[in-house]
């Protein structure tokens, strides 16, 4: 943050919070380790699945299940303390005496964390794509997206889909950081949210089918949870391009809407929690005061 330097002018509060948060992230070596670990996991998964020579779409197939776990995990690692740090230290109370709104503060923190998250996640995936590019069979170099042909563009689509998927989880992680009152509490809530997010949607879908929901409803139901929406979009836009599917994997509009909804929902919870959390605490105190003492 040396670049901030001496300033007499006032810049947008969101940009100011963003720069401070980004500077904090850049000075956290753990995030570099996280990116390296992610690259090792992805590389190991690719190697077990036959290596880069199998092509881009087979690589995506190999990486998909792992991605559904590691991307939410990385999002929670990056975001679970994003808003808690200042609240826990007391600096948020100081920041709130400055002309920056709660929404502006949350926006600045989340934007910086999102940028960091994308660097942590997309760079390892891009490197894996580079490995596939370097080692795959010659026909994977064809820049085409039509049926039956492998292509780097399909892998780029996969990378593109990581962004809304990761953003949804990062937003949820940020909400956890806003709701939690301590680091330990944040870890506990984050683990619960992670397990619920990764497994909850599929388990709910299975339960729904077991209770008589017709299979034709699967594309719509699958799209509701972040993992189902992401998986469905990958099948629709990447894997399914390589063959002629019998039907739709997912309701695309609903899947996109769901990922957007989870993202916006997390941000709303974060902002509301910081803006009105104290008042809710006061309401509880009021209720407690009205209860007869034991």
């Amino acid at each position, binding site marked *: *943050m*040396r670049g*901030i*330097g*001496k*300033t*007499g*002018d*006032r*810049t947008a*509060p969101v940009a*100011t919070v963003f720069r*401070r948060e980004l*500077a*904090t992230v850049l*000075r956290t070596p753990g995030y570099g380790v996280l990116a390296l670990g992610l690259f090792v996991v992805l590389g190991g998964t690719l190697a077990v699945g036959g290596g880069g020579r199998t092509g881009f779409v087979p690589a995506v197939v190999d990486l998909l299940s792992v991605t559904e776990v590691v991307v939410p995990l990385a999002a929670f690692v990056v975001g679970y303390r994003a808003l808690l*740090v*200042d609240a826990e*230290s*007391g*600096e948020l*109370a*100081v*920041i*709130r*005496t*400055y*002309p*920056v709104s709660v929404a502006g503060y949350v926006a600045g923190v989340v934007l910086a964390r999102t940028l960091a998250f994308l660097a942590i996640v997309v760079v390892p995936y891009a490197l894996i794509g580079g490995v596939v590019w370097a080692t795959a069979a010659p026909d994977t170099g064809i820049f085409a997206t039509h049926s039956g042909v492998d292509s780097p563009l399909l892998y780029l689509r996969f990378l593109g889909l990581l962004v809304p998927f990761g953003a949804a989880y990062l937003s949820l992680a940020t909400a956890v950081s806003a709701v939690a009152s301590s680091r330990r509490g944040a870890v506990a809530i984050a683990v619960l949210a992670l397990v619920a997010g990764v497994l909850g949607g599929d388990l709910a879908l299975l339960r729904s089918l077991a209770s008589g929901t017709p299979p034709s409803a699967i594309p719509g139901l699958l799209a509701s949870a972040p993992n189902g929406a992401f998986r469905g979009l990958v099948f629709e836009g990447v894997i399914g391009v390589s063959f002629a599917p019998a039907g739709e994997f997912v309701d695309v509009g609903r899947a996109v809407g769901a990922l957007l909804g989870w993202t916006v929902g997390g941000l709303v919870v974060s902002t509301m929690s910081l803006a009105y959390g*104290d*008042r809710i*605490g*006061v309401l509880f*105190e*009021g209720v*407690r*005061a009205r209860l007869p*003492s034991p």
Partner: protein
Amino acid sequence: MTDDPIAELSDVARTYGGVAVLEDVSLSVPPGVTAVIGPNGSGKSTLLGVLAGAVEPTDGGARYVGPDADRPIGYLPQRVPFREEFTARETLAFYARLAGGDPDDALARVGLSDAADRRVGALSGGMRRLLGIAQATVGDPPLVVLDEPTSGLDPGMRERAFGTAVDASGTDTAVVVSSHDLDLVDRHADRVAILDRGRVAAAGLRERLCSERGVGDVAGLYRAVVAGDAPDARSDDTDGDEPSAVHVTGVSER
């Protein structure tokens, strides 16, 4: 110096887990230095938090009634909260960008220019507090609220920190500071508010409170009001001839 208030607390109460920490506190804060003193657990930090907007009261409210300002209230909590990986200059630069001002000027004001490039984590406790005071005055807020800025410091640093805080006050600026250092309060405070078990036990101009209770200094005043050593330990300051700048509801009810 005018007696028009910069901020007012009206019938403020705050409970935590059903336990009352503040009860029925009304206080107006005019320009100058107002020291909030009282035993541990008397509600000083909560009172200052309510005044700064950092603590939501369960009843009553705080109101800023001072001049228009982009940053009306500056606040330093009891625990200096800055991120340790940033330098002193970076820390103040962040705040200066939000409220306007020059971080180097703010550092110079508290005598920390030589430590500008030191990480917050490497600053001594006293230097951190000075940095906190510098932060609280960024943007020249008309009301500066400092929660125990001298806590845990050696005598020299206490004097320096308190003096720096006092320097922030002026004809249109109020500084509210809590402290256990009664000598410093005696030397620097214009007004004193004494908290005892969540209520304002006495408040008003320091000299007049001392005179009313027949004590020579704030330490004597504290003993008289909190320990009840003086015969008129709980008299209402508003009964005096001179209209008080600090109106205390809770006092007359005790």
